């Protein structure tokens, strides 16, 4: 599954949330969607997932628009993991993960072997097998995140769109979750994740898309996107850089005055 977004615009209350966004997504890569608050990251993710229609522009899935593809076929190919996704009833972790199989199940048919295998695989990847009989409401934040991720992976989608999957986690679980998403991307499922932590984005993602004020400011490998001018322009920050065992890292270090920010943009 390949998603092509062309010249997307989204407005809310007369204010543009997204304007002229054009990008393509393919399986096999871990893409980070970064940008300051209000840049339109979540909005873009929802448009890509087919959950809200853009005011202008087109989104196609393998060349077909959602109206031609159908929501059900899209659901099998693209999984969406909302931010702070609720679990309204006291379901067990296993039952929640099984919900990820719904797009594959017929109207009447029961659970198939393929469904069970996919659920096992998702629980294994996310290291959540021991949680399967726990009620989701009783899990810690990290455990819950893994179960919800397993739910999305159980669909066996070509692409997983995740809205801030690691923001609520402690550093240890953040590292584990990012590694998991990268592994998943290597395994064939393309991952697009909204991220706030630039350090994690720099280290784990194959590609970064930088959004600011509803526009794509940069799109490419982390090294090409996380440059001083782009970060100053988009976030209004200066960063501290270094390397650990040859891998680069960066730390947000200082805010820049608004004037300097504008000059840098030009």
């Amino acid at each position, binding site marked *: 599954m390949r998603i092509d977004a062309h010249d997307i615009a989204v407005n809310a209350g007369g204010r543009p949330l997204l304007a002229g966004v054009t990008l393509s997504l393919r399986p096999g890569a871990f893409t980070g969607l970064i940008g300051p608050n209000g840049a339109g990251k979540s909005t873009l993710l929802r448009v890509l*997932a087919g959950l809200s229609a853009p005011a202008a522009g087109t989104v196609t899935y393998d060349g077909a628009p959602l109206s031609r593809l159908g929501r059900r076929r899209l659901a099998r190919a693209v999984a969406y993991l909302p931010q702070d996704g609720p679990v309204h009833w006291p379901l067990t972790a296993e039952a929640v993960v099984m919900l990820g199989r719904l797009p594959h199940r017929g109207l009447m048919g029961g659970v198939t072997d393929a469904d069970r295998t996919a659920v096992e695989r998702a629980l294994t990847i996310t290291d959540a097998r021991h949680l399967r009989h726990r009620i989701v409401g009783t899990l810690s934040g990290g455990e819950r995140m893994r179960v919800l991720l397993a739910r999305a992976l159980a669909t066996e989608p070509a692409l997983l769109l995740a809205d801030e999957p690691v923001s609520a986690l402690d550093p240890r679980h953040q590292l584990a979750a990012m590694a998991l998403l990268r592994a998943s991307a290597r395994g064939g499922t393309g991952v697009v994740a909204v991220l706030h932590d630039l350090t994690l984005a720099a280290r784990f993602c194959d590609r970064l898309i930088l959004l600011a004020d509803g526009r794509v400011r940069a799109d490419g490998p982390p090294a090409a996107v996380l440059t001083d001018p782009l970060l100053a322009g988009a976030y209004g920050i200066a960063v501290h850089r270094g390397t650990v065992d040859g891998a680069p890292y960066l730390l947000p270090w200082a805010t820049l005055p608004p004037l300097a920010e504008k000059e840098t943009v030009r």
Partner: protein
Amino acid sequence: MIPRIPYPALVAGLAALAAVLCLASVAVGYAPFDLTAAVDDWLAGRATLPALVLAELRVPRAVLGLLVGFSLGLTGAAMQGWLRNPLAEPGIVGVSSAAALGSVAAFYSGLSATIGLALPLGGMAGAASAALLLTVMAARGAGTTTLIIGGIAVNSLAGALTALALNLAPNPYAALEIMFWLMGSLTDRGGDQVMLVLAPMLAGWILILSGARALDALTLGEEAARSLGFSLTGLRGRLIAGAALAVGSAVSVTGAVGFVGLVAPHLMRPLVGARPGRLLVVSGLAGAVLILAADIAVRLLPTRPELKLGVVTALVGAPFLIALTIRLQREEP
């Protein structure tokens, strides 16, 4: 941990219990009655008085109890899944009392005397209006407060309009009949009522049951449910139509029996691992069990004329509601 009963065993057990209560309901009555002789006569086609009582009074009463209970339990479970709130129930949110209002309008205007189907249709119209109003109120999420306040508003309005309609009705008995419509009863119901509501109820059940998968998906919220391939507008349409068909026709022949749609899903939820889709059929069966048991109870209790069904279900259900409210308050401070 609650002992896990396999789902098919649970369904079979509840169905068996409902069947046993149906038989008990047929056996319980006021007049000395030789049930076996009546059954023999009926099967042999001998139109004896006991066979007449069996065929025209006791069996329709039991069957109607089963149908109405299933409709209320099923609809309660569906509404809870849809609004993701364990307090959602046809009685509390006002769907039942609006259905009573619609039925009252159809009955006392004389419309249903000319066109029989006008009675359930009136009930359905009332139920559908309340359900539509509920979707408007719950458009931005159905918190407990929204549900309860909206329910109070709809229930008061429908109750007042029902009282008004009954007072305006030309028959002097009408004004005294508000208890039937607000509390519900299976007394002296007959086979004609069963035939009147059977088809619309079954249609309602099918519509509601067809939403089982979508209700499961809604556990994860509306966005996730849509991303799993479900159309929420489609689900909403099916549930409103299903609730209107099932509850509207149920109320039009027995009045509004409260709390069944609240208690049945609440009791069954732990037994199906809280899965909203699986909750549907078992809640329907549990609703049937509750109504049948309540209807046997009103005939065994020594109060004459017999208690309205809603009195018994409220005696059981209202404490449930109080306990649930307290618990929900602790969970969502």
